[in-house]
């Protein structure tokens, strides 16, 4: 626990109370043990206590079972990543204990289920071991054979005792989660929790207490990235979506399917990925920006239709929750390896917009921006999120919903005349009229994938192909000019600039803090607008001797990650280098720091 200040203040004199700013708790067990539930309770509790929280989880891609972890980092200050090292490991099995002991900082606490875990003598010295017969105590508390049911809640009770958590708030959370038709379920949960909380931890003398977090403006909401993105789409006015199940995108379609009818909307589960994007495009043509999405191979399947949307200049939002690839790859692991397909995937020149949210809160606002950019520039927009953001839980200040919720219903009132692909349009942007709109001139447009004239009718004219290609490209140039220059975190000039995109933001910023605390002149920028790029990057690069692009994908044949290659191609600057990895996990702060150090020292930039 960082910034530990000893403050013996407990009245009973038995356990000392230590004030802490933050704690990283790693819970390790099997995927069906409900460890996500413990983490979820802790995250939600933190959100209600105005604390910052970030979680990190791994789930096996097996159908049922398999080792799984859930890490929660709760802090009274900024929490930007899920934490490199755990202050506490809660281990349910021998494999959880042995597999995750290395994630605990020296002197940290290992709380283990003594029914299943036998501590190793060589580790007893290095970590503080606390054994509790979690399984048998749970059965004792709620009776029956109970086969593992409820032990997660018992463990939550233990954690509540150790971290002096607000029991009243947790009990209310239990009520919200388990208070359903069957009253015994909630009763059992509360009994388990109380048993854990009342358990005498003889050998653990210290209790910890979080410092009060500063009061934020407004109440916090707690959710994962997929939820934030889906709700953002609803706020943006999206009322139609179509998709096909694939991990980790499915949560978004499930949520939209469940929620959209409340707003008069529909989400359709299609027969395949191609039908999904086609149906969403059809609905967009119907007059209101629609959404489709996928992960991994599903995105590949959508690229032909995406090319049509680019050619026909149809607004559309496509969500790509990136996972390890190529092919089926690592479906439940994180990677940022879809940048190339998002920016360039498809045949022909097919400009499109790509946005990458930096975290859970940003997912909500990025979804709204994606819809607004799609409308304003009449273009498909991809949102590149990833498995890491999708599954992690964060607390953030509730958006001003009255302000951000928007109505994008089509205007079907008649117009005198209309040319969708008007080459003389002052802003150079196509405007479609939804079918059902009367055009008094009697000249109606066609939307098409063929090269076309201003009314959308096919043409083989080289002159028009040149002009229309330029039109589709120039609107992205215009968007680029409208984009904000990314803010530099850290000094405007110095030794090293780290460049990230999307979810690299948190750990990269913490890495900068680490460097700066050691006196190094290091800064970072994180790009949300990935394609087209904003202006002003070259000016930022000028201030630094080294530029490292930190991303979760392979260094490729030429030694740069995918975004690194884009920046090198764009700026022809040989000082741009890549720092990449593909181990399926989010960046640890230490990894970034070590890799950058090694690279600056002249070592090859290798993992």
């Amino acid at each position, binding site marked *: 626990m960082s910034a530990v200040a000893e403050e013996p203040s407990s009245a009973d004199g038995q356990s000392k109370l230590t004030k802490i700013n933050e704690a990283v708790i790693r819970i390790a067990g099997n995927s069906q043990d409900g460890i996500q539930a413990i983490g979820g309770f802790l995250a939600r509790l933190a959100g209600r206590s105005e604390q910052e929280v970030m979680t990190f989880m791994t789930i096996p891609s097996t159908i049922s079972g398999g080792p799984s972890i859930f890490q929660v980092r709760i802090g009274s200050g900024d929490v930007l990543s899920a934490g490199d090292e755990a202050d506490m490991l809660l281990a349910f099995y021998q494999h959880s204990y042995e597999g995750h002991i290395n994630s605990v900082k020296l002197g940290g606490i290992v709380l283990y289920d003594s029914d299943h875990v036998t501590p190793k003598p060589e580790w007893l010295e290095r970590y503080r071991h606390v054994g509790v017969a979690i399984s048998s105590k749970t059965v004792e508390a709620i009776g029956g054979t109970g086969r593992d049911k409820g032990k997660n809640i018992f463990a939550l009770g233990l954690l509540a005792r150790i971290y002096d958590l607000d029991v009243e708030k947790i009990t209310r959370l239990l009520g919200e989660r388990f208070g359903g038709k069957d009253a015994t379920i909630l009763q059992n949960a509360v009994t388990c929790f109380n048993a854990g909380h009342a358990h005498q931890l003889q050998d653990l003398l210290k209790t910890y207490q979080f410092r009060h977090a500063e009061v934020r403006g407004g109440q916090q909401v707690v959710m994962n990235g997929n939820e934030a993105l889906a709700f953002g789409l609803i706020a943006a006015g999206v009322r139609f979506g179509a998709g096909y199940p694939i991990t980790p995108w499915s949560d978004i379609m499930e949520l939209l399917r469940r929620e959209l*009818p*409340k707003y008069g909307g*529909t989400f359709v589960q299609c027969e395949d990925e*191609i039908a999904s994007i086609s149906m969403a495009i059809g609905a967009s043509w119907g007059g209101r920006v629609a959404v489709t999405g996928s992960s991994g191979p599903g995105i590949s399947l959508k690229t032909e239709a995406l090319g049509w949307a680019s050619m026909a200049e149809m607004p559309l939002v496509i969500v790509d929750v990136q996972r390890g690839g190529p092919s089926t790859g690592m479906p439940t692991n994180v990677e940022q390896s879809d940048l190339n397909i998002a920016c360039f995937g498809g045949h022909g020149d097919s400009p499109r917009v790509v946005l990458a949210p930096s975290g859970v809160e940003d997912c909500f606002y990025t979804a709204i921006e994606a819809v607004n950019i799609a409308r304003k520039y009449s273009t498909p927009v991809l949102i590149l999120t990833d498995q890491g953001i999708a599954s992690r839980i964060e607390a953030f200040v509730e958006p001003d919903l009255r302000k*951000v919720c928007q109505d994008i219903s089509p205007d079907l009132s008649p117009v005198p005349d209309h*040319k969708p692909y008007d080459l003389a349009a002052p802003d150079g942007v196509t405007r479609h009229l939804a079918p059902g709109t009367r055009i008094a001139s009697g000249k109606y447009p066609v939307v*098409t994938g063929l090269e076309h004239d201003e009314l959308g009718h096919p043409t083989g004219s080289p002159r028009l192909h040149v002009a229309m290609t330029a039109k589709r490209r120039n609107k992205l140039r215009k968007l680029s000019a409208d984009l904000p220059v990314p803010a530099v975190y850290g000094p405007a000039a110095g030794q090293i600039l780290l460049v990230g995109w999307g979810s690299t933001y948190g750990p990269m910023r913490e890495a900068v803090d680490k460097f700066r605390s050691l006196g190094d002149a290091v800064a970072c920028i994180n790009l949300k607008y990935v394609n087209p790029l904003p202006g002003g990057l070259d000016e930022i690069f000028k201030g630094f001797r080294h530029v490292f692009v930190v991303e979760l994908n392979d260094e490729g044949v030429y030694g740069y990650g995918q975004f690194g290659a884009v920046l090198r191609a764009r700026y022809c600057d040989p000082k741009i280098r890549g720092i990449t990895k593909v181990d399926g996990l989010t960046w640890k702060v230490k990894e970034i720091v070590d890799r950058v150090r090694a690279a600056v020292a002249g070592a090859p930039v290798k993992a």
Partner: protein
Amino acid sequence: MSELKFPFTPLPRTGGTITSDPVPPLADSDRKPLTKKEISADHPTWCPGCGDFSVLALYFKLIERRKMWHEKVTTVAGIGCSSRFPYFVQAHGAHFIHGRALPFASGVSLSRPDLHVFVFGGDGDAFSIGGNHFSHTARKNIKMTYVVMDNFVYGLTKKQTSPTSPIGFKSKTDIWGSLDRPINPLKQAIAAGATFVARTTHTNPNHVLEMMEAAMDHDGFSYIECLSECVEFYPGAFDASNPRKGGKFDLVPKEHDVTDEYGAYRLADTAWPGCFGIFYRNPRPTKNANEAKIIEEHRSKVSGLADWEILQKSFARMK
């Protein structure tokens, strides 16, 4: 964080030199049925004598007869000779990618209940590259009319075997004659769960129009298999069904029960050239209606609330 770089902005309706000022509404009673001249756009690029001309002419006639207004005519197609259709119709149209016209049209149909969507395509579009979508659109009973102009050959790419080419048909990809059993579109449609299945041929204009009208009146996925001769790459393919060429045009027997799925299936197996008319018509709730019902149920629980208030209720549970 809550500063949106791209907040909502109202957009101009049309671009460029054209004014986007609205024009006054026009009462239906003040409008005359559209003439062929008003409803036709580009001159069709089909080969002279192509069966598709007749289908297009009858679509115009349908629009005129049923007093459909320009803006309500919604024509969608995929890729193929017949799929050029939307360019020839002076109305809102979409020319989508190969094989995916049905899901595109589904998006329009499900999000715009005020429009009746017509989809035109060929046998390659419907039964080869788009085969999956045909089954699922039929199964879901999404409201639209789908006319497949079946010519038993790939015409746009100049004579390759199609999924409906009969065994023995000599094409550039089967120079010794096609080997694979052709699809029977009617059986396919019935088995997939289409709620309206009819068969017609371009050489009998009155019959084509009659089928189109019946299909349009059907509340659900209505499918018309329309034989449409490719004079360039498969001339004479349908002579057996054309009395002017010595063939016979048999109607679906009067005693056939159109709600009998198995009877329709058996009828679809009648020896070549088979018979023409409505094979199957058995309404069941459309996806459009089922979804509308779900929406109505959900809306009734949040009646009186603005969208942001509904969202706020969801967020209240995430605190």
